[in-house]
């Protein structure tokens, strides 16, 4: 295991290379340019392929081709670029292309801001494109976790023949931290018997729902639903000091980094507060909220870098109305502020006391 000091983007790219990713195609867009830049330098060293696509759309479709040909393949982008890739994501799910996609989220709709935001939660977890497919969505809050989850993402994508989304923001992308890099993996592109390569002497590979009938598409939808059911075992969640907590903060990614400090400071002041941090935001750890003792927990504060709040809908589904839920958020690329979160918690404490 190698230890290095790396930016989030670099750690993601290096971890992908170590996971056996040998094809990357992407189009420059801030705040994730260090990912294509890293691959541009790194891929030639490992016999991999880097292509700067002419667009987000072309890049995602090159990844479809590479994934369909058997390679571990990846693309990355930010907000508007992910929207452009959404048709390709839907196609990956439909055709069964394993691929890893990283979204460094932007603030707000349209072009948005390029710093740090969590505006794409609902898009990422519920509908990254048309047609009702889903992806496993991994949301790291440190560079180490970004590297580990990237490595894991390729295995999940191959296991399910489905795209996997790594959901980060400008802070995780740019922050530099020490990271233990995973070991190198060799991946045989001929191991996937379904991959196109020319039919050889065998039957031809159609690599699609060759049957476009309604019944065939429904069967495909049912297969997808069954696959999504199997994801319960993949749920990852951090429960931080929740056992005796009377106040629960729910946050993921960069918001959770900041909320860690909030919980530590308020604990030091004697408050019984904890945090639930979904690491897989899809599948969402509903159980972590369902299992909260509603006699003990007086309120839940959902902290997100987006306004209006988005993850709060999943928290509500888990809580089922048993515990009051509030939100605190900043948007447009503004970080949630440590002191503002503390003030919000104290305000909620006062309201509950009344």
């Amino acid at each position, binding site marked *: 295991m190698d230890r290095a000091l790396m930016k989030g983007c670099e750690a993601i790219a290096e971890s992908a290379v170590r996971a056996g990713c040998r094809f990357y195609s992407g189009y420059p867009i801030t705040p994730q340019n260090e990912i294509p830049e890293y691959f541009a330098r790194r891929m030639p060293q490992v016999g991999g*392929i880097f292509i700067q696509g002419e667009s987000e*759309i*072309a890049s995602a479709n*090159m990844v479809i081709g590479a*994934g369909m*040909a058997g390679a571990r393949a990846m693309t990355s982008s930010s907000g508007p670029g992910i929207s452009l890739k959404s048709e390709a994501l839907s196609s990956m799910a439909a*055709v069964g292309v394993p691929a890893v996609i990283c979204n460094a989220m932007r603030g707000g709709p349209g072009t948005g801001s390029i710093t740090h935001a969590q505006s794409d939660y609902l898009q990422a977890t519920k509908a990254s494109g048309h047609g009702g497919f889903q992806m496993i969505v991994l949301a790291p809050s440190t560079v180490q976790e970004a590297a580990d989850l990237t490595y894991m993402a390729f295995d999940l994508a191959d296991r399910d023949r489905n795209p996997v989304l790594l959901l980060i923001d400008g802070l995780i992308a740019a922050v530099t931290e020490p990271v233990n890099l995973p070991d190198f993996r060799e991946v045989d592109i001929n191991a996937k018997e379904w991959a*196109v*390569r*020319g039919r050889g002497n065998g039957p031809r590979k159609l690599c699609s729902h060759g049957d476009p009938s309604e019944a065939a598409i429904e069967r495909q939808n049912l297969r997808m639903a069954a696959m999504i059911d199997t994801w319960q075992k993949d749920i990852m969640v951090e429960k931080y000091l929740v056992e005796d907590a009377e106040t629960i903060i729910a946050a993921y990614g960069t918001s959770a980094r900041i909320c860690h400090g909030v919980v530590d400071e308020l604990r030091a002041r004697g408050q019984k507060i904890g945090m639930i941090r979904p690491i897989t935001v899809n599948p969402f750890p509903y159980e972590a909220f369902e299992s909260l003792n509603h006699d003990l927990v007086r309120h839940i504060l959902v902290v997100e870098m987006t306004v209006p709040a988005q993850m709060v809908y999943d928290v509500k589904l888990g809580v089922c109305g048993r515990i009051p839920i509030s939100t605190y958020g900043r948007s447009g690329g503004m970080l949630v502020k440590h002191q503002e979160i503390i003030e919000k918690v104290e305000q909620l404490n006062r309201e509950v006391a009344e």
Partner: protein
Amino acid sequence: MKTLYEHPKSLFTQANRFCPGCSHATVTKLIGEVIDELGIESKIINVLAIGCAGLHGECLNVDVFPALHGRAPAAATGIKRVRPDSIVYAYQGDGDLASIGLCETIHTANRGERFTTIFINNAIYGMTGGQMAPTTLIGQKSTTSPNGRDAETAGSPLKMCELISQLDAPQYVARFAVNNVPNILKTKAGIKKAFEIQMYNNGYAFVEILSACPTGLGMSPSAAINFVEQKMMPVYPLGVFKEPKGDEK
């Protein structure tokens, strides 16, 4: 007994789903013949477009990957880069290649990706029901140009061979037609040459084929062939626009 003409081996024997007189069927048959003659059926990968071109994938006993609308060049790029020993061709119609996928078409050609593009230009959208294509002629009526294509508002027909041949990287750029026997034989030779360039010269080849769409044009098969000859050919002249140096014949 001597065989004068037999069904191409790589072409499935069941009937295709193209309309009567559709040039897609002619070109599909020719590709089958070329695959047989070059003996490449085991290593060829067909990247399909959306539209009637998609029906092509049902016809040949080769690996097929159906790309999204306009994205066959990008998907073919990914496949060929990962599998450089395979022989890859993108099979696209005019809406797919010259309208929604124009960006991918130009950039793929400009990178000199080492695969072959077969471009069916029939000056109309077939699958969706006869709408205006980027290659629809000035004055040509379609369901979305009911008074005929007007250059003032809809621009002029896109001449893809002329565009692609301006680029440095493409090795072979040629336009053919399948309106009569001599032109069908020339088209077949052009397709074969394009595949050979991929196999031996390792370069990008672009073959445009003027095609008849009787259904989309609302014509009989023979009238659609006349349309190709009399209306399309003056706008889209046949010929080789670019070929490898030292190989000019």
